[in-house]
């Protein structure tokens, strides 16, 4: 009874997850759907008295492989959705044919299979429990296949590393060397790093430029990537534009203090007046 209830709850989730993988536009949604399907399958295994298989399914597939997939997807692009353009000609036709073939093959196998009248039962199949039975299969019966697969995987890993390997001609600069270089080569003013973004009454995000002492916005204070994407606020928005009242006040200030040095901007004279 409990097993049937579990099945009717988890089976739709597994199927929906599989459909979600196929039909979702965003790659991350697809990966998360697949993770849901994998967890449902693991629960089925556990319900079928194969706890080791179920737990390993979660640890290896959901916990490591799917995580790695997601890592790569997130690295590639945060919101890159699949484009529907066919990049290789005839790909769709070939894919349809291949899928039909596989479905026919599997259906043929399933229909033609003969099942025993009475299942042998777990007690007969694995007399010592799950773990020893699987260990016996992997390290006893199929040890040769297991070792070959291990060799194949190691070859693949070493091959990938060889293909992406790059020989360094000069040693990588350490943090200390970079710091010394920054002081000795660049302008001393830049040694402390770039200026932080602006903080105002209504804006304090990274897309907001800071104002320099003379009232002009500092281009360096906004990340170049944000500017290139067009995600930063325009620096012009924060430039100080003198209003007619400001100019009038500045003129008055000049009139009040004829002896004072005529400053290039009204701020200086304002300060003196205060």
């Amino acid at each position: 009874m409990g097993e049937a209830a579990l099945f009717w709850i988890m089976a739709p989730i597994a199927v929906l997850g599989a459909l979600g993988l196929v039909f979702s536009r965003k790659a991350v949604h697809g990966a998360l759907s697949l993770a849901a399907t994998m967890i449902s399958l693991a629960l089925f295994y556990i319900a079928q008295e194969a706890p080791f298989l179920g737990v390993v399914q979660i640890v290896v597939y959901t916990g490591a492989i799917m995580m790695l997939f997601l890592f790569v997807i997130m690295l590639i692009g945060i919101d890159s959705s699949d484009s529907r353009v066919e990049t290789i000609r005839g790909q769709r036709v070939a894919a349809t044919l291949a899928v039909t073939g596989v479905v026919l093959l599997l259906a043929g196998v399933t229909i033609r299979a003969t099942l025993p009248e009475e299942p042998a039962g777990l007690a007969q199949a694995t007399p010592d429990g799950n773990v020893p039975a699987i260990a016996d299969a992997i390290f006893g019966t199929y040890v040769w296949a297991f070792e070959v697969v291990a060799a194949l995987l190691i070859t693949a890993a070493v091959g990938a590393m060889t293909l992406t390997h790059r020989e360094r001609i000069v040693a990588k600069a350490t943090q200390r060397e970079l710091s010394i270089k920054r002081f000795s080569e660049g302008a001393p003013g830049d040694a402390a790093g770039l200026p932080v973004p602006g903080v105002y009454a209504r804006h304090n995000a990274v897309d907001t430029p800071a104002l320099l002492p003379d009232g002009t916005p500092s281009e360096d204070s906004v990340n170049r990537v944000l500017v290139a994407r067009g995600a930063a606020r325009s620096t012009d928005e924060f430039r100080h534009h003198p209003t007619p009242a400001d100019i009038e006040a500045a003129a008055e200030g000049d009139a009040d203090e004829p002896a004072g040095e005529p400053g290039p901007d009204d701020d200086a004279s304002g300060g003196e007046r205060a």
Partner: protein
Amino acid sequence: MIAIAAETTGDEVAGFGNDPWWIIAIKCLAIFVICVVLTLFNIVFERKVVARMQHRLGPNRTGPFGSLQSLADGVKLMFKEDIVPKAADKIVYIAAPLVAVIPSFLILAVIPLGPEVSIFGQETRLQLTDMPVAVLFTLAIASVGVYGLMMAGWSSGSTYPLLGGLRSTAQVISYELVMGLSFVGVFLFAGTMSTSGIVAEQERLWYGIILLPSFVIYLISMVGETNRAPFDLPEAEGELVAGWGTEYSSIKYAMFFLAEYINMVNVSAIATTLFLGGWRAPWPISAINDGMFNTGWWPLLWFFGKVMLLIFVFVWLRGTLPRLRYDQFMHFCWKVLLPVSLVWIVAVAGMRLAFNEGVERNQILLYGGIAVAVLLIGSLLIPEKKTPAEPEPAEPPEFDAFAGGHPVPPMPGQEFVAVRIPAATTQTDDRTEESSRA
């Protein structure tokens, strides 16, 4: 301890699966309450201990000695405005805290908190359930919980959370591997993967003593697994604002917080079970009155005492060590911890095989000692790495304060000779220009 425990029961661990429903309900409720109450306590505990380490008092206003501070904070957090950013992926954004917090409640279900006791006349073990692969089950549940952090980072739709999510993914893949390897030694010696079986096997000697390298590796990787300082790179507040949690607020943020603190208890409980003898009393106490303190409800005290000791280690680390740089952190995992674990597992497997073949412990120690001695003597024969002789530093040249473009004071022994102010000329030029214009 040495003989492999015969698993005659197949896929069920003896002593479980026969509880009436109301005992199961009581145990489930107890685990939930333990998780929540320990979280409330641990937050205050952590703040108090860190404060003492920094010569402060810590929270001392709410409740006696500030003990209700985290309760007040929690209530405050619930009533705050819940913000969902415009760029967020709504469904994933809301599901993320749930995915993080639900698995964290599950792990204590397979941890033995004590031996057989009687609840309302019903004999039962102080453990909700056990299975032949219980330790692997905890690993699986932990890896599902990490999806929460990763989903939070991705779905927030902004840069810092995404970076935090990426870091958390990479960190967990790496450190989970090491954590799994540190279990292998225990499995080999206990001959079982069920938690109650492992505790039973540690009756004479804790695995934390005989498998010390495994224990140390586990302690390091458990800090990495729970994203705690000095491995808290996914939420490094100096670099990523709050990492994957930057955009979260109100009860959703509280859930992440809850998950983090429950996970601390979880990994400490696993360490206690696997390496510190589980609920068994420490040595001098366990010998009193023929093991009286290992029966009844006493073991709860020892179990939670050990867990709190490990929590204190977490806090101690946070109060002591600065955060690692990201590349150093990854190097440490892949180039130090992983090879050490692999070598250690080979050694443990060799020892195990020798015991199974009937070799005496003295002989193993003798031959192992001889092998180590040969290696040590051999290492003496390796010629020392010759560092290229540095050229004798010539007579220090005349000290120029502006040589690097930035004025610096002379070092001890250097003579400050000439004064050169390169920027002065241009400034004077400006001024003369201005005054002439005036």
